């Protein structure tokens, strides 16, 4: 019995990279979107780390990057 260790390593590395990248991008996008709220519920004196415009930009960039990453992966599978 031969085991394709190389392919298994590819699965591990790609899954780790894509999983961490997509989760991190969506998390950053949520941080950016949360900056649009002036005072979060339950934290009236909290100042968001980003301005509204910067938060929206960060959220848009991160979500676009996440969509492109997933889309490229699907393209590789379907093509």
């Amino acid at each position, binding site marked *: 019995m031969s085991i394709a260790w190389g392919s298994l390593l*590819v699965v591990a590395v*790609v899954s780790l990279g894509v999983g961490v990248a997509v989760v991190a991008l969506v*998390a950053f996008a949520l941080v950016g979107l949360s900056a649009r709220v002036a005072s979060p519920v339950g934290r009236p004196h909290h100042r968001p780390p980003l301005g509204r415009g910067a938060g929206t930009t960060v959220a848009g960039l991160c979500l676009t990057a996440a969509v492109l990453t997933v889309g490229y992966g699907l393209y590789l599978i379907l093509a």
Partner: protein
Amino acid sequence: MVALAHGTNDAQKTMGVITLTLITAGVLAPDSGPPLWVTLSAGSAIALGTYLGGWRIIRTLGNRVSEIQTPQGFAAETTSAAVILTSSHLGFALSTTHVTTGAIFGAVAGRRLASVRWGVAGQMVLGWLLTLPAAAVVGGVAAWLSNTGTAGTIVAVVAVGIGAGIYAASRRRPVTADNVNDTPAPLPVPARV
């Protein structure tokens, strides 16, 4: 994404078995791929099964393993989809259940190791270990029955009846969309004398 990944990996197994059966029966040429009706029926069956649910499994993975919060759920789903899609692309057949369960355990343990109910994990692993020989035995018995005549038919009818009874017993306390998130009642603590 996990449902899509599930279809790319698990539907192929069903299609492969049906196509191999058709080839060995002489219906298809040895080098032919799965016919369109095989693809459509396998895909439809997987979609129907996903739609019908398995609410007990949802409750076990969502409530009994640990209390999953939204970030852990998202991380587990993303990881599962990435692993299954990558494996499908490279030709590895794997179990969606195993991958998803492992991802949920990892995501929950990453938040707080002590929050995982390892007893439930042990029960699941035991079930997985038993599944392989049990499926082999059932497959062997089914193959043997298919070569017998009336006796095999009677045994098959009795087996179907037993299966229906087990299904009816599982319906006495059904898990549905209405109660899938109900937290199980804590076990009674014995009084100290």
